[in-house]
């Protein structure tokens, strides 16, 4: 077992390694000084870059703020309810037309039925006209047979002939119109049959289209309206990251001071080891002090190294966070506003197209259904004439019966004709009633048609147009915001590029700081090598120093609590201080 060297042996040993240790420590000290200067230089560059970066970030945030305030505009905020109103108006517009088309189809079917009833009435009237003409011929024959006695019945024959001619003409006219109307109705029915599925499809398309468009617009506008909140959060986040860099840069100054203290301590240790003016015994006594001092500096060095890693990492993290925040939510505001405007614009165009298509369809329907009122007029006139005919027939029958009765037996045939006229008059009366009934039904039908046609009226279109107008107003504001955002987008791009360039520059400074850390590791390794050599030369060295004296010697320059705690850990084995992983900055204590 190797025994501990005595004082004389220790002096001999140290003489061999002392010069080497001093040289190494002086070299380490010189490297620390150079590192301090290099780091300080890099930090000045970094601080300037950081200031320029925050200035670019401010420019980006200012631009974003103007876009956000244009989005915060009340008119833009009200765009969503307006689009919803328009969507509802468009759905109601198409829905009413589909319902009305169903109603019109029903009306058309009823009209076809009424036209059939009219034709039945016309056929009966035509039969009566034929009978009347036959009675006129018979009356003329009787007038000829009776001679002078039958002169009074000549008027009856003429009246019956006139009646037959007039009724035939009237019925023909009505039949012509009824036929024309039937053709028109057929055309309407075809239009409706073609249009109804189209309208139903349109309604289904509008419903689903509106549903999805409104969902998209809703979520887009909602997203747009959350932008101010997101923006405020981005501003807060960036401010927090900026504060992180500010604190980290200050942390550099703390480690700079600590390195200076290590540097000073190394100078003191070198001086003691070089032992100029000291006796050999004195040099031997300095060995444990130098060893203890070096132990403390190695501990300080390790703590400094970890602290430097923390603040360099914090600077990188904060800079990267600033880049990410500024390049995402904030820069994304302009395209988002543009996208929303495009969504809503295309939606509005679709509804405008629908409204114009619908107008053409309404005109076609109104033209077609307008024929009903003309037919109504004809039927009314025909009914009036039919009523007057009934009265004339009754009067003719009455007069003829009186005259025939007066002449007695010789006018028996005329009496029979007169009674036949009376019977015809009764039939005519029934037909007239039937016509009146049909007329009533046609009136109802006309009223019904007017009601269903309300869906195609200008008033109905007006409701949609008002909603369109209102939406267009909201859209104009959104469009202005979008145009503004588009105008700002280029500036935003330039500001962002500037910001990115600063981040890259800061990144290269970070690389240089990392390189400095690598150099610091080498210095630390050199100090540890000297420390180990001292232990090898004198294994008892760690037991031969006065801790209180060492503390006094080396703590005088310390300015931070961390340095003092590290010293305690190095000399007394107390727990070392926890190295700060992040720097949030300290508060102000006002006296």
């Amino acid at each position, binding site marked *: 077992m190797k025994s501990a060297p005595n004082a004389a042996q220790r002096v001999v040993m140290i003489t061999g390694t002392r010069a080497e240790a001093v040289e190494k420590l002086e070299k380490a000290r010189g490297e620390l000084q150079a590192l301090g200067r290099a780091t*300080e230089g890099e*930090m*000045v560059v*970094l*601080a*300037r870059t*950081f*200031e320029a970066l*925050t200035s670019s970030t*401010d420019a980006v*945030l200012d631009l974003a703020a103007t876009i956000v305030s244009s989005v915060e505009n009340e008119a833009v905020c009200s765009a969503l309810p307006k689009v919803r109103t328009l969507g509802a108006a468009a759905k109601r517009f198409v829905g009413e037309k589909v319902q009305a088309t169903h109603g019109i189809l029903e009306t058309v079917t009823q009209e076809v039925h009424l036209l059939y009833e009219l034709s039945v009435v016309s056929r009966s009237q035509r039969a009566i006209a034929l009978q009347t003409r036959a009675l006129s011929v018979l009356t003329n024959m009787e007038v000829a047979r009776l001679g002078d006695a039958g002169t009074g019945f000549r008027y009856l024959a003429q009246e019956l002939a006139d009646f037959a001619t007039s009724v035939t003409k009237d019925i023909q006219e009505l039949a012509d119109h009824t036929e024309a109307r039937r053709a028109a109705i057929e055309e309407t029915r075809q239009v409706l049959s073609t249009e109804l599925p189209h309208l139903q499809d349109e309604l289904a398309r509008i419903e689903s289209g509106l549903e999805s468009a409104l969902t998209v617009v809703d979520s887009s506008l909602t997203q747009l309206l959350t932008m101010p909140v997101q923006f405020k959060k981005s*501003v807060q986040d960036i*401010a*927090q990251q*900026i*504060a992180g860099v*500010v*604190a*980290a*840069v*200050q*942390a*550099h*100054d*703390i480690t*700079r*001071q600590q390195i200076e203290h290590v540097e000073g301590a190394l100078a003191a240790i070198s001086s003691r080891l070089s032992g100029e003016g000291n006796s050999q015994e004195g040099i031997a006594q300095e060995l444990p002090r130098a060893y203890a001092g070096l132990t403390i500096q190695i501990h300080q060095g390790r703590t400094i190294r970890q602290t430097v890693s923390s603040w360099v990492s914090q600077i990188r993290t904060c800079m990267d966070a600033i880049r990410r925040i500024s390049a995402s939510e904030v820069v994304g505001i302009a395209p988002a506003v543009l996208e929303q405007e495009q969504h809503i614009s295309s939606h509005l165009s679709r509804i405008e197209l629908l409204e114009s298509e619908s107008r053409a369809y309404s005109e076609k329907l109104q033209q077609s259904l307008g024929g009903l009122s003309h037919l109504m007029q004809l039927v009314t006139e025909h009914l009036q004439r039919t009523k007057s005919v009934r009265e004339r027939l009754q009067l003719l029958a009455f007069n003829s019966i009186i005259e025939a009765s007066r002449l007695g037996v010789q006018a028996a045939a005329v009496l029979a004709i007169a009674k036949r006229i009376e019977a015809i008059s009764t039939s005519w009366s029934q037909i007239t009633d039937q016509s009146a009934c049909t007329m009533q039904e046609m009136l109802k039908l006309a009223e019904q048609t007017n009601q269903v046609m309300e869906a195609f009226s200008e008033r109905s279109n007006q409701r949609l147009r008002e909603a369109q107008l209102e939406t267009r107003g909201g859209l104009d504001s959104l469009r202005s915001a979008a145009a503004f955002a588009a105008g700002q987008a280029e500036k935003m791009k330039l500001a962002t590029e500037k910001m990115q360039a600063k981040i890259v520059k800061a990144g290269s400074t970070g690389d240089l700081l990392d390189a400095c850390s690598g150099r610091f590791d080498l210095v630390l390794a050199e100090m540890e090598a000297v420390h180990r050599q001292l232990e090898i030369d004198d294994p008892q060295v760690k037991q031969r120093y006065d801790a209180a004296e060492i503390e006094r010697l080396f703590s005088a320059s310390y*300015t*931070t*609590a961390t340095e003092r705690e590290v010293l305690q850990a190095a000399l007394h084995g107390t727990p070392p201080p926890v190295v700060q992983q992040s*720097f*949030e*900055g*300290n*508060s*102000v*204590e*006002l*006296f």
Partner: protein
Amino acid sequence: MGRQRNSHNGGTTANMKRILTVDDSSSVRQMVSFTLRKAGYEVAEAVDGKDGLGKISGGKFDLIITDLNMPNVDGIQLISAVRKLPGCNFVPILMLTTESQAEKKDAGRKAGATGWIVKPFNADQLIAAVQKLVK
């Protein structure tokens, strides 16, 4: 750190409050200046106590922020000297230092410091304290 503009303290250079930061570390001076300028203050810099004293003698400041350990004239010496200057008796002086020992703080208080901040400072809290002291 709040986004504040120059309007925060009046807006124009003419009525902006002037603050002097005294520190031998240029990066710390840069951070103090950056933080306070962003908050709307006009900031001058001095590299040590001697430089600071010269600047204070030559101009009016509404607040002084000084380091403790500096070459030539240290923070405590600077405060003592400032308090003797005419018109500087009530100028608020904050110490911004790595020192946190009670006896050092006591020395600062006795010399005439208004407050104490252990480095690194929190930007928001520094601005809040400055706003409170400079009205």
